[in-house]
């Protein structure tokens, strides 16, 4: 683990430049999805609606934060040979907590997210951060790093979901913004100014998530040229 980043060894809890960088770096220069290409699977599958994306983002922030903290606390006790399995057990436990909580509190979201809650376990962001950061840093810095990466992931998820839901169904968070919902199909005053938009069904299907992320990457790299792939 020679490549594990060690931020600093000084004691005490403070919030200076380095700590702020831990939080903001994953939002732009080191974004988990558009730069590191981690955690794509769930980003594609759950972004058909803002609501699902928001639930997923919260779940990933939670898992990322606590997996980082717990791994960091145990980092000196974990033998190197079995660290993958230990990390996976920590993540799997947290994901089980998320799954059971969702099942109890928001059954509707639990139903529509189905297997993708379980797939947070193999979400490479969580695993990647444990391996690259939490195994070598104190719990406090690891918590910031986990939060930052969770947010970096969540923000992309929400952007993709915004485009897909808005253009696909003319809705945001399930509320009708554009287009004719069944009650407006009859010729009323509202139907004339709400009903002109026809939902684009392709945006709801899987391939459109790919296109939206591709355009996002394009925009991100055009705006931040140092990220351009030179190979």
């Amino acid at each position, binding site marked *: 683990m020679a490549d594990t980043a060690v931020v600093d060894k000084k004691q005490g809890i403070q919030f200076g430049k380095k700590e702020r960088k831990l939080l903001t770096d994953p939002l732009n220069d080191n974004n988990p999805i558009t730069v590191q290409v981690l955690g794509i699977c769930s980003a594609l599958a759950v972004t058909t609606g803002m609501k699902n994306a928001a639930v997923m983002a919260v779940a990933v922030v939670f898992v990322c934060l606590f997996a980082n903290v717990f791994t960091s606390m145990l980092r000196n006790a974990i033998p190197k040979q079995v660290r993958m399995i230990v990390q996976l057990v920590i993540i799997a436990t947290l994901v089980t907590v998320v799954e059971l909580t969702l099942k109890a509190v928001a059954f509707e979201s639990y139903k529509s997210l189905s297997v993708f809650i*379980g797939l947070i376990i193999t979400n490479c962001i969580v695993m990647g951060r444990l391996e690259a950061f939490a195994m070598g840093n104190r719990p406090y810095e690891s918590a910031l790093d986990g939060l930052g990466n969770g947010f970096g992931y969540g923000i992309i998820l929400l952007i993709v979901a915004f485009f897909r839901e808005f253009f696909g169904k003319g809705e945001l968070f399930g509320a009708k913004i554009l287009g004719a919902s069944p009650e407006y199909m009859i010729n009323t005053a509202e139907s004339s100014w709400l009903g002109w938009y026809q939902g684009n069904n392709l945006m709801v299907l899987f391939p459109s998530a790919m296109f939206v992320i591709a355009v996002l990457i394009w925009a991100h790299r055009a705006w931040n040229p140092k990220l351009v792939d030179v190979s």
Partner: protein
Amino acid sequence: MGDLINIFIKSAFIENLALSYFLGMCSYLAVSKTVKTAVGLGLAVIFVLAITMPINWMINTFLLGEGGIFQTDLTFLRFILFIAVIASMVQLVEMVVEKYSPSLYNSLGIFLPLITVNCAILGGSLFMVSKEYNFAEAVSFGLGGGFGWFLAIVAIAAIREKIKYSAVPPAMRGLGMAFLLTGLMGMAFMGLMGIDPAAF
């Protein structure tokens, strides 16, 4: 038997793990730069899916289910057990392959650890549970899913090898193009959705 062939074809083409569920995307995008490495990773995925699927089926039925040996519903342990099985099977397969077939190890070896966190493997097991397959169906689903994933990654690697020589805008080079291509391939695979596997 016909049922099993149906499931194989369905999971390989119509419900392709990579192109219609977009599972295992991280390694799919990271390792698809050349056809050679893509073939290696694809084979490793087939291998591991075919091994872990029956084992996870047995764990789910005989240990966790209500009719299992503990006579209680232990399904909340599913994630932890599945991922532990996958991680340890990958480790075991790696050791066995290294011992008995060094040439296969040289071509597969580096990809095996990657597979632990490939969501296609865990996703396959979770789909198997939610679709309530029996043992033979689970094996067929594992093989078919692995084969479909193999096809998908080899196809995109071939396209990416070609596209290296095209004039792509700098900001779109590499990753951006890979996403766009996968989206187009996903659309192409959507065309297979109309096929009724029962016709075979």
